[in-house]
């Protein structure tokens, strides 16, 4: 396999990682029955906070701060929708706009400022493996996190009793409750966990593939992550494949942009959203995607 393909695949894996992490987090939240529409705002805010903290205390603390920010946003959502039984769409939407406006306003002093980030660190033995090693194991630590998280999510969901309970509270909370599973407590917990993932994803932008901070640094990515959960059929492996597929299509559109000079430059900026709509249309309507059904109780508050 020649170098060009290997390098391209490596770039794709790297650039698809933030979306992957965010989508995994949202997948967990949705598996438990909660939709977190605030992703776009959450990503922006946590990526800003991560950048600011990292500039003063180093990248590791920045990542932790970003995760906490993501969880905080998720906490607000969880509290209002689970404890106060308000509409998940409404609360998520307001939180999204809040995140965007706060990050625009508070981020002013940090625009275009240089900051630290996690650069590529090849893993000792694994990166020596002929093709796979170069693509997956010569990356920034965020990529390693993402792969680990995919494995953990898959194992948790498929192989543990906790994972079964998670699936239960999202599919049929009434029966789960009758069996003694604390539906709302678990929903709260899983929403927080999902939010933590989203925070990590935010950090992987400003401290990873898109170092620094600009206005609207990650604007729109949250929606792509949300769509990715649907496109991946709420399954961690398919979400991973979807994220990389998406990253490759985005790179391809950027390439097309460069190769055909007559095209308007905004095309590659707009392409992801067109692809998102097409992908959703595809998944909702082909019967071959029957196994991609959403958790039954998604979006419905559960009254204990």
């Amino acid at each position, binding site marked *: 396999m020649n170098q060009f393909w290997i390098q391209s695949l490596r770039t794709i894996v790297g650039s698809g990682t933030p979306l992957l992490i965010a989508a995994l987090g949202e997948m967990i939240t949705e598996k438990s029955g909660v939709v977190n529409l605030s992703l776009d705002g959450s990503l922006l805010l946590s990526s800003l906070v991560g950048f600011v903290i990292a500039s003063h205390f180093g990248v590791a603390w920045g990542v932790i701060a970003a995760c906490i920010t993501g969880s905080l946003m998720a906490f607000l959502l969880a509290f209002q929708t689970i404890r106060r039984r308000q509409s998940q769409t409404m609360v998520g939407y307001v939180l999204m706009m809040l995140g965007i406006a706060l990050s625009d306003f508070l981020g002013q002093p940090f625009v275009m400022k240089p900051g630290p980030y996690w650069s590529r660190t090849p893993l000792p033995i694994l990166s020596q493996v002929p093709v796979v090693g170069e693509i997956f194991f010569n990356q920034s630590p965020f990529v390693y996190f993402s792969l680990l998280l995919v494995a953990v999510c898959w194992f948790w969901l498929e192989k543990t009793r906790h994972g079964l309970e998670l699936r239960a509270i999202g599919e049929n909370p009434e029966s789960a409750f009758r069996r003694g599973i604390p539906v709302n407590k678990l929903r709260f917990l899983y929403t927080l966990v999902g939010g933590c993932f989203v925070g990590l994803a935010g950090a992987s932008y400003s401290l990873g593939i898109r170092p620094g901070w600009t206005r609207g640094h990650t604007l729109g990515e949250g929606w792509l992550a949300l769509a990715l959960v649907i496109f991946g059929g709420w399954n961690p492996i398919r979400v991973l494949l979807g994220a990389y597929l998406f990253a490759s299509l985005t790179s391809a559109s950027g390439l097309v942009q460069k190769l055909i000079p007559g095209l308007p*430059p905004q*095309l590659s900026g707009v392409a992801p*959203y067109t692809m998102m709509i097409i992908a959703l249309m595809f998944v909702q309507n082909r019967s071959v995607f029957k196994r991609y059904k959403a958790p039954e109780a998604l979006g419905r508050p559960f009254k204990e």
Partner: protein
Amino acid sequence: MEVETTDWRSNVRRKWIRSLQFLLPIVATVVVVGILFWMLGAPPLHAFWQIIDGGLGDWMKIGNTLLLFCPLLICALGLLYTFKAGQWNIGMEGQVTAGAIAVTLVVRLGDQLPRSVLLMLMLLVAMIAGALWAAFCGLLKVKGQVSEIFSGMGLNFIASGVTIFLICGPWRQSTGATLSGTTPYPEQALLPRLSSSRFSWVGLALAIAMLALTYLVLKRTTWGVMLRSIGLSQRSLITKRLNPSRRIMEAFLVSGAMAGTAGFIQTAGVYQKLVVSIAGNIGFLAIFSVLLAGNDILKLVPICLFFSLVMKGGSRLQQLYQFDYSVGLLVQILGVFFVILASGLSNRKGD
């Protein structure tokens, strides 16, 4: 079956909660915004006064605030149709933009026409363009089962991209492409104005007309009641006979047409050309207005007035303290956020 309690204690508590739900958001917003202002170097009280003064300081400013109010109210009214049908028309921002783009096209092609003909044509085209853009969301929902939230947001981004392309490309100013917008409209493409303010009776007339129309249609026509039934339950046997898909499409078309009208006012009145953020967040603010107003159509008026005041006053803060231009939006969103927190108080367990 629930037995209504006549316990005087819980009645008093409920009254307390209602007043808190009104006061708490106001206090919380003022406090938090005050802290944010102070953190960024602006004396809070002075900044608050500037917002009010910037919006209501003199007749010209009042006129401009009212001009911002009109498209906002029209969008909020448009959203009522889709909300009643159970849909979240988040794509309104893009529909306003689509209307604005169509208006600009007409202005570029038809600036030889007499003023009244030109303006009416602009309005018509704006409504059609907005309706068509909304039709995409409707079709994707009805035929494709794609959530209108995703198609709406996606189409928003696409509309935004198209606008930037036009401003920097085919429709750029003759002095060179600039992000400040296209060449300003010629005089006959502008809404008739009062003296130095940009306020136009046309905007106000449109807003009032749509308010009356929406009130009548939603409350007094069969179609309005059908929309409401569909919003409440899409799967019951009764609503199946109402052809919900068709109704949802109709709701989106109406909503989009009104968004287009707002786009018309934004271009021919407020900005007087096509700019990058021509919808100016009206689509999103309109959603907040509807959320705050609940089921009460008339409440939209004071809420939208308040939002336009903060928008207008907020731009003053931007000049004075070099605040980011999102400051007005931030104040509004914080207000909505606290209202939502407070309204949750009545859902506490045990109440």
